[in-house]
């Protein structure tokens, strides 16, 4: 709630400053006759002002509170004021004959651009930090439309796109591990959809803690996850798979409602790339998972 309130206060500041500056401009000058107005200028500068206002709205809405947002906000507000006064100039002839015009051209607009640039520079450094945090979810390729709402991981389409990129790159040796929670449908039935979503989100975090920097985690569907291990030999991939299984099996998930512990069993299938198509690779991993599951049942 405080976040929303602070955003509203930013919009209020923006509106107030615009009002103040417009009032000053009107009081400081005289209205021109409409016949003398250059409408092209109005549309151009007024339009630019409105677009800048829209940029400001988008940025304030999307970003959390902080120093970087404040810098971007101040910068864009000044740029907006610059364009706005420029457009108003067409309607109001300045009396003082110099101060407003001078301020416009030499100070407000360039100052705004400068402050905005500082903000962008800080945003650049901030983004690099975020990219580092998202490495295991993205591996340097962001597609916000492919992100799964429950776990913040990429889905089946993202997985296939990433595998295709690996196939096309020089890294010709990679493995795919499919890891699926046993009996997830039952868990969902017993404890409800909210608990099921929470379990998936936590399992995703747990798996990521056990990955290397270059590995990628995706949620294929349901309770099935995929780990892409680039530049990894089959033997090492098997070791990593065993580690992930161990981690999952020992995870003491706590139900929110009762605090009871629910342990998870899982099944997995591993396939190493050796020239086949991506679909065949995934089908191979799936077949391995099914075979392993059947074996475990018999045992």
């Amino acid at each position, binding site marked *: 709630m405080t976040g929303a309130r602070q955003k509203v206060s930013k919009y209020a500041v923006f509106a107030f400053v615009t009002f103040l500056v417009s009032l000053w401009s009107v009081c400081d000058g005289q209205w021109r006759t409409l016949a003398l107005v250059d409408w092209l200028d109005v549309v151009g500068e007024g339009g630019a002002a409105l677009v800048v206002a829209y940029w400001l709205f988008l940025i304030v809405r999307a970003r959390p509170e902080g120093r970087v947002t404040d810098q971007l906000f101040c910068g864009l507000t000044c740029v907006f004021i610059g364009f706005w006064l420029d457009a108003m100039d067409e309607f109001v002839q300045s009396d003082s004959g110099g101060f407003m015009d001078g301020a416009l051209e030499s100070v407000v607009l360039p100052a705004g651009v400068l402050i905005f640039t500082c903000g962008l520079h800080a945003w650049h450094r901030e983004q690099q930090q975020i990219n580092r945090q998202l490495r295991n979810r993205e591996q340097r390729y962001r597609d916000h*439309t492919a992100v*799964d*709402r*429950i776990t913040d991981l990429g*889905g*089946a*389409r993202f*997985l*296939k796109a990433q595998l295709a990129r690996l196939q096309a790159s020089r890294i010709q040796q990679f493995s795919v591990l499919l890891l*699926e929670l046993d009996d997830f*449908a*039952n868990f*969902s*039935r017993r404890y*409800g*959809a*909210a608990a099921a*979503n929470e379990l998936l989100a936590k399992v995703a975090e747990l798996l990521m803690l056990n990955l290397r920097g270059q590995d990628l985690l995706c949620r*294929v*569907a*349901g309770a*099935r996850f995929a780990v892409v291990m680039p530049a990894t030999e089959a033997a090492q991939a098997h070791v990593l798979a065993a580690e992930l299984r161990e981690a999952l099996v020992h995870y003491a998930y706590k139900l929110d409602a009762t605090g009871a512990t629910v342990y998870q069993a899982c099944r997995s299938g591993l396939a190493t790339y050796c020239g086949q198509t991506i*679909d065949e690779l*995934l*089908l191979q991993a*799936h077949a391995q998972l*099914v075979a392993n599951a059947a074996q475990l*049942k018999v045992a």
Partner: protein
Amino acid sequence: MTPHRWYEREEKLWELLHQPAILLDLLTADGANLHQLLKGTAVFPQDLRTGGAISSADLIKLVGNARLHDNSSELAFRWGQSLWPGHYGAFSQLLMGATNIAEFVQGLADYSHFLCPLLVPRVRFTEQDCCIEWLDGIGTGEQKPFLVQAYMTGVIAAVEWLAGGRVPWRAGLSARSLVPSELYLTYWGAVPELGVGLDVLLISREYWLKPWHSHRSQTTLTAQRRHQSQCAEFAVNVCPGFIFAVFSVLEQKPRDPPGLDATAQILGLSAATLKRKLREHGWSFQRLQDHARLHACVYKLGGDTATNEQLARYFNFNNATNFRRAFKRWLGDTPSQGRLAALRLFAKQTKTA
């Protein structure tokens, strides 16, 4: 007064607290807004606490709204997984008491009105398979593929739970779906055959009557009989959906289906009324007639080694060219492509070790 032999779109028949509530639960758990989901329907949020009935038109609208709010292709599968046995009183008890696939599917088919709104499951046998077809009950239009995905997932998931393990299902879908195959592999264990012309779930005959448990006590048998009679009592006044009622008339004679006037007469309507009602439900007479003939044709393509000439004779076309043209209209693809798809679907399965 003509007896009411079918239900129509605007009749409030489906219990809100059953399958629709499960769908809404899934979405609200994901953070969707309930008011947005109920937009365009006659349902209020408080109805979800007290219960009530929802019409087919509203349920179809609800499904449409749900799909808009969920950008993943997974919603149908997740909904399907939580559908059955469910909490539907005697009907759920009946499903839980099933001891093999046949009993489960029969329960579903007998009481589909209470267990799977809007679509009609129907069992059909080929030489080596048991086929569960999913037919349009009331004109589900664009939402049919979603409902088919959900219900097929429901059958597969419920059987897996009750049987204690996965069974090798195969599936054919009429839609050329854009869902990634990995979703099918995860939820169904197999990728379906697309663009087949039917929505059908197949299982090899050997699994149909295979018992899931070695022993059944007298108590459970008695209980199951009691559930059966309870369900039968509820189902006394049930009638089929309008589209299914018309389809049933048309498919009785696939070789020479009745025309608009004849069908209207059988149903006790005027031709104009039939035409209007079909339009209201999102179908046209020609399309429904084509659909009925396509149904019959797909099984023939998958089973017999019928050539286009033989099929043309069977369906009373003058020659193979006319048949080919008509088939292309029915399926949207040539008979040879249709035959390939059908053959892949109904192919003889090699026994797995």
